[in-house]
């Protein structure tokens, strides 16, 4: 079948609902926190009582602008909230407010990287603001469906790509980059289990080389990267199977069933709803001045792909390290501070991704909750970089600092690990070691260089690691007459 598969090209476009992290809802003052008791975070606006009116949440607008700027999209000076009309119990007004004709962000580019490190640039069509619906709860009441309006009115930014992706792996690479970006910008908590980052995938196939688009199916609401990959792969294979048989896929919405690893039809577009979009007369057009947009531009942090390039090109980090250190904002910011204090970017990268990440992991802590702040770790690494201490001692000091509020100097003092600078004492100890191990010394003199490490090791043990290995080596070589 693989020859046949190669004859087809998949075309994928993604729509991601990014839940904006705001204290209150898109058009009402109710709180947005997840997990409250049902209907306790729904006010008169959210349940659409007669006579209520929407007021736009400025924080949601600002976050959408920051996203638009970060992807290099055009921020519309005029955008409009439209009503998307349909009936469903979790939709209290009987319409959803969404930007249909004039979205707040047009275009834009998301920079992603594939697993092999190659660059994937994904063209966005648009990003628009809308409000979430409530949730229907089908299993709580016998013979009846409950509705929880806590989520109703939660601000969403729907990010829509052009149909430019061609594999499930690329789709996931894009999603991960988008996920990184929205968390990096602080506009979304990225929690996929709680539905803060939800993906719909539009999938079609066409004969390779064709520039026509095939009939697409839409897989709704897949809530993990792994399932997105599986669902898209399944759809691609299903479409190819149909096309191979000479059948036409139908335009429809499908649900991914993770337990069976397959998608099944939810509704066909033959019964497509007419949403009767029209501009919401309760909200004047959203006008954004240059100054308002500029104010958000000033708040933009250095972006992940910018940091990645800088780490690679200016700091000389490995691709792997640069990638890891430019994915999560908190870790990256921590690294920036450590590197600045340590004065050695590579050393800082090794330690932040090594000892520090391991310690966080075993303590099950987030970077933000680390007991060891970046200034203290940076201080420790500065001493290591200047060879004031060696790596082995640094690890001991690190452990002590992790469990205390000590600075590097304080921890070194407290542990009695201060480096032995007294060269006369060291020289005496070296002579004593030579006397204690005549056989090994003879072999070393005969050119068995590996025994150099034996003597250094013995010296380190004797000084509990507080001696400088370089100094010791010099002394031993002196005595060899080298």
């Amino acid at each position, binding site marked *: 079948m693989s020859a046949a598969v190669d004859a087809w090209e998949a075309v994928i476009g993604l729509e991601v609902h990014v839940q904006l992290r705001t204290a209150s809802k898109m058009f009402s003052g109710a709180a947005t926190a997840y997990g409250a008791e049902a209907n306790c975070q729904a006010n008169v606006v959210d349940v659409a009582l*007669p006579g209520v009116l929407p007021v736009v949440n400025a924080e949601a607008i600002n976050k959408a602008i920051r996203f638009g700027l970060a992807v290099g999209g055009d921020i519309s000076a005029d955008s409009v909230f439209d*009503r998307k009309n349909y009936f469903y119990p979790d939709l209290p007004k009987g319409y959803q407010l969404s930007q249909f004709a004039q979205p707040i962000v047009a275009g834009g580019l998301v920079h992603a990287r594939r697993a092999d490190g190659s660059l994937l640039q994904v063209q966005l069509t648009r990003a628009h603001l809308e409000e979430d619906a409530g949730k229907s709860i089908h299993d709580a009441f016998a013979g009846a469906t409950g509705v929880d309006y806590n989520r109703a009115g939660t601000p969403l930014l729907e990010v829509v790509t052009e149909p430019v992706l061609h594999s499930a792996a690329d789709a996931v690479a894009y999603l991960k980059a988008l996920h990184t970006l929205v968390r990096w910008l602080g506009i979304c908590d990225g929690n996929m289990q709680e539905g803060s980052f939800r993906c719909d995938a539009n999938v079609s196939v066409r004969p390779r080389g064709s520039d026509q688009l095939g009939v697409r199916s839409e897989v709704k609401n897949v809530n993990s990267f792994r399932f997105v990959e599986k669902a898209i792969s399944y759809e691609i294979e299903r479409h190819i199977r149909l096309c191979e048989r000479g059948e036409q896929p139908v335009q429809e919405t499908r649900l991914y069933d993770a337990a069976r690893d397959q998608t099944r039809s939810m509704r066909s577009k033959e019964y497509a709803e007419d949403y009767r979009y029209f501009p919401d007369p309760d909200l004047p057009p959203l006008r954004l001045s240059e100054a308002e947009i500029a104010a958000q531009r000033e708040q933009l942090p250095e972006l992940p792909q910018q940091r990645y390039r800088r780490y690679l090109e200016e700091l000389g980090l490995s691709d792997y390290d640069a990638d890891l250190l430019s994915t999560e904002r908190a870790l990256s910011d921590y690294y920036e501070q450590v590197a600045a204090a340590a004065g050695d970017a590579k050393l800082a990268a090794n330690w932040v991704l090594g000892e520090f990440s391991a310690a966080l992991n075993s303590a099950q802590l987030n970077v933000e909750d680390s007991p060891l702040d970046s200034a203290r770790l940076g201080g420790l690494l500065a001493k290591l970089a200047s060879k004031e201490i060696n790596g082995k001692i640094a690890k001991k000091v690190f452990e002590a600092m992790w469990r205390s509020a000590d600075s590097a100097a304080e921890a070194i003092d407290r542990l009695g690990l201060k480096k032995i600078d007294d060269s006369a004492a060291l020289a005496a100890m070296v002579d004593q070691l030579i006397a204690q191990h005549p056989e090994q010394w003879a072999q070393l003199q005969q050119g068995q260089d590996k025994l150099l490490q034996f003597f250094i090791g013995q010296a380190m043990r004797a000084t509990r690691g507080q001696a400088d290995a370089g100094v010791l080596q010099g002394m031993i070589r002196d005595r060899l007459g080298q």
Partner: protein
Amino acid sequence: MSLPTTVAGQLDALAAGHCQAADLIQAAREQGCRHADLNAWISEVEPTAPAAAENAKLGGIPYAHKDLFCTAGVRTTCGSKMLADFVPPYSATVHERLDRAGAVLMGKANMDEFGMGSSNEHSHFGAVLNPWDRQRVAGGSSGGSAALVAARVVPFATATDTGGSIRQPAAFCGVSGIKPTYGRVSRWGMVAYASSLDQGGVIAQTAEDCALVLQQMAGFDERDSTSLQAPVDDYRQALQQPLRGLRIGVAKCFFGSGVSDPVAVAVNAALAQMEAQGAVLVDIDLSHAELAIAAYYLIAPAEASSNLSRYDGVRYGYRCEQPRDLDDLYRRTRSEGFGAEVRKRILLGTYALSAGYYDAYYLRAQKVRRLIAGDYSRAFEGVDLIAGPTAPTVAFKLGEKLADPLAMYASDVNTVGVNLAGLPAMSIPCGFDQGLPIGLQLIGPALSEARLLAAAHQYQLHTGWHQQRPGTSGVPS
């Protein structure tokens, strides 16, 4: 002792100690009982006289709300079976402001269901009768508000105007009403019919009373994104502005074929009176006026079809018995809960917004709307106000136009353009035909409420039409 029946008169009597708020409340209740047959109330409340408050500009004055202003704890029906038992947990901004001003709510006034009607015959709670002739309609949709003021039950009532719903019933009932500039009075808590056209206002006996009440209702409200930020003028102070030099535009289109001769005669006499007081009459042209009805009856139903989607039987309001499934719940709840006129407009609006018809109907109507607004802007470059008949005829007979919706809609011909353009306008009494009142409409540019009220007040200083009350002879001495 006979108590005054105007807002200004009652405020003076209270200030002079000639009566107490409790006396006014008692009088309102008794007068309401005498006119119970008008069917002007949907709900009456048991008011308590407020403690005399400092700076309470309307302290102790009884009033009625059109029954689409949400009043916390008091049922708000919109004249509909759908909301017949709906008690809102929150209050409209208009209610909060009048409450703060010390006005005393006596009850909720009857209205056409959700504001859809020109005769107040489309109410789940039955038609309101015209106090001047109980065989005739009170006008709509604020028929209850106009009838209560005309019958001297309350000195003022709130009302709303989407296509003439303040001005036309005010004209039919011989009282004064002002529909302010769109955005001048907050729509928060005012149940929507057509959001881009709806505007709250006042019906009272005199322009002066309208000024006193509107002063308390108007002003920016952050809960309404279409609310205007401009400061509110001092309306009462502005009343003293004489008519001298005021340029009043007269448009032929307002005296079209549907306008009865007696109405035209009375309105022309009113214009002559204003001219005699120093106003200057100027002929103007509103070239797209004849398209207003068509545009209005597309835009208003389109918005209504969406605004009324929330009445689905799920969260509050009427729900059908024993729904079989979700579709059945929607279908029967809405078929049973809405009256025929509301269902008709929802269908009309749904059609106008549907794929394939949107451009031809909704978008084209919006284009006409801009043309009409443009006509008014140009006209106001040369005149200060525009005047004409509010309605083409006096109040018609109950049932007369129910079978002919187009004839019913045509009675809005002179009022809907103002809503499409978002302008302020008033109707004041200017004569009688067969013992039935005739209304003079005055239209101003945006935010010219003070000018409108002043012109109406100056006219009323020299005429007595607004002082006529039902039950007395039609023609003043």
